[in-house]
């Protein structure tokens, strides 16, 4: 009934913008930036992956992202579970409270950590009071992980919640009725069934942590570089475009690889269940 011609025409402007303002520039920058060609980028990427000063940046980026994802899962999943089983009025409020930080920009959200973690900050004061000497968490990996957990917890909560809210609460009751303790019912029934949502959450958090800029910039500084802050300094300070492209390429591949992997895992999960 619907004719194809006019419908295709509706797609064209959007596709044109995607190709001209997204796919082409990104591909050009990743593979053949202004001062280089694919060979230069390949050489730079090789250097990045073998340079004893840069390899730790990649390792640190992955470590920070993995830690952030793990902590977000550990905290976010139980929160999502609690919200999904709370009475409707409370669930709505808690969910809104968890979502609200997403409305604030990352500077607003991260800035407070400087006050908390800085030498004269709350942690410093508590440390001094306990006689631990000068506790300086700012510009450490711990600070970056804390900041990123704050940033991405809402995403994990939302992803897990969407899975948990769809789950028939009777399943958990059935397990309890059959003699399973709350912990056993959670491990054997609730969690396995909400795994797809948790997996989506993990992917979002991991990709977000790998690409986040504000938080590592403010809380890690130049001391604890991640790929994103390295990329920025290569563009802004050293103005070395092929080298920047190499970092961008590694970052992009890392994110795409993890998304692809979780997509595969999700598929395997859905065929076995």
């Amino acid at each position, binding site marked *: *009934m619907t004719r*194809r011609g006019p*419908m295709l025409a*509706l*797609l064209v*402007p*959007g*596709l044109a*913008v995607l190709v001209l*303002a*997204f*796919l082409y*520039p990104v591909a*050009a*920058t*990743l593979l053949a930036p202004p001062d280089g060609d694919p060979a230069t980028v390949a050489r730079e990427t090789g250097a990045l992956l073998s340079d004893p000063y840069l390899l730790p940046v990649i390792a640190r980026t992955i470590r920070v992202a993995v830690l952030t994802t793990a902590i977000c899962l550990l*905290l976010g999943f*139980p*929160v999502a579970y*609690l919200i999904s089983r*709370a009475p409707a009025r*409370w669930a709505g409020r808690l*969910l*809104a*409270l*968890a*979502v*609200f*930080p997403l*409305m604030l*920009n*990352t*500077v*607003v*959200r991260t*800035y*407070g950590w*400087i*006050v908390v973690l800085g030498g*004269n900050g*709350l942690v410093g004061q508590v440390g001094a009071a306990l006689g631990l000497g000068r506790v300086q968490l700012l510009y450490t990996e711990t600070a970056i992980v804390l900041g990123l957990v*704050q940033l991405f917890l*809402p995403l994990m909560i*939302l992803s897990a919640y969407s899975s948990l809210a769809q789950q028939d609460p009777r399943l958990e009751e059935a397990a309890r009725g059959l003699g399973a303790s*709350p912990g056993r019912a959670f491990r054997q029934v609730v969690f396995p069934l909400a795994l797809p949502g948790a997996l989506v959450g993990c992917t979002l958090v991991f*990709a977000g942590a790998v*690409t*986040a*800029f*504000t938080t590592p*910039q*403010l809380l890690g500084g130049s001391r604890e570089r991640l790929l*994103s802050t390295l*990329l*920025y300094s290569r*563009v802004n300070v050293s103005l070395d475009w092929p080298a920047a492209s190499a970092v*961008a390429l590694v*970052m*992009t591949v890392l*994110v795409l690889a993890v998304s692809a992997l979780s997509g595969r895992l999700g598929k395997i999960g859905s065929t076995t269940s």
Partner: protein
Amino acid sequence: MILRRPLLSLLTAIAFVLMLGPVAILIGVAFTAGSTLAFPPEGLSLRWFAAALEYRPFIDAFGTSVLVALVSTALALALGVPATLALQRGRIPGRRVVENLFFTPIIVPELVLGLALFQQVMVGLQITALGTLVIGHTVLLLPYTVRVVGASLALADPRLEEAARGLGAGPVRTFLRVTLPVMAPGIASATILAFITSLNNVPLSLLLTGPGVATLPVEMLNYVQSSFDPVVAAVSVVLLVLSVAVAFATERLAGFTKVFGR
């Protein structure tokens, strides 16, 4: 609930303190009478709010941010809504592939997109920072509009349109009287979500700056890195208040968690 699930309640408390604690502390810092980032604040005053309002770059950057957010939201809707319509209602060959293509800007790191636009568009084509910002944000928001409007359209029964046609309405009338009203809530949600997403963006906007042109979050980031006074805390509180207002307005219009909880 709390008494019955102590571990769960403890983890939830930790999570909420982590998510909101640093923001709450910022409120305290903003009202300090002292001149350092100290908590608890050293006396109460509004001096940093006054300082923020007098700091020209923030005012300009706020204007830039709102302008970019408005224009790119409008453009993303203008491109995204027709595309969604085609994807959901036209029998497009290779629909999944095209749809995924529209979502790719979400997967590619924003910093990389920013770098690409900086190199290829701003430097390469000599387009102004403002123009490049609008282009970049439009690309960034396009997936949101396609997904959110698409979700509302996918829920609606396509037979509504067939029913309208069967009752004698032509294609244009069917679109205006049936399809558009069905899409309206989705478009409203997409508008709010896209606007806030643009307003808050940092990584994409980071490199797209020019003389006197930068978005507010980027200007705030630059300020924080060079000075240690609480001006940015005051700006943050202003943004926080605005966000609360938008959140309540959104709740009344379309449901806050429905819009931002995607």
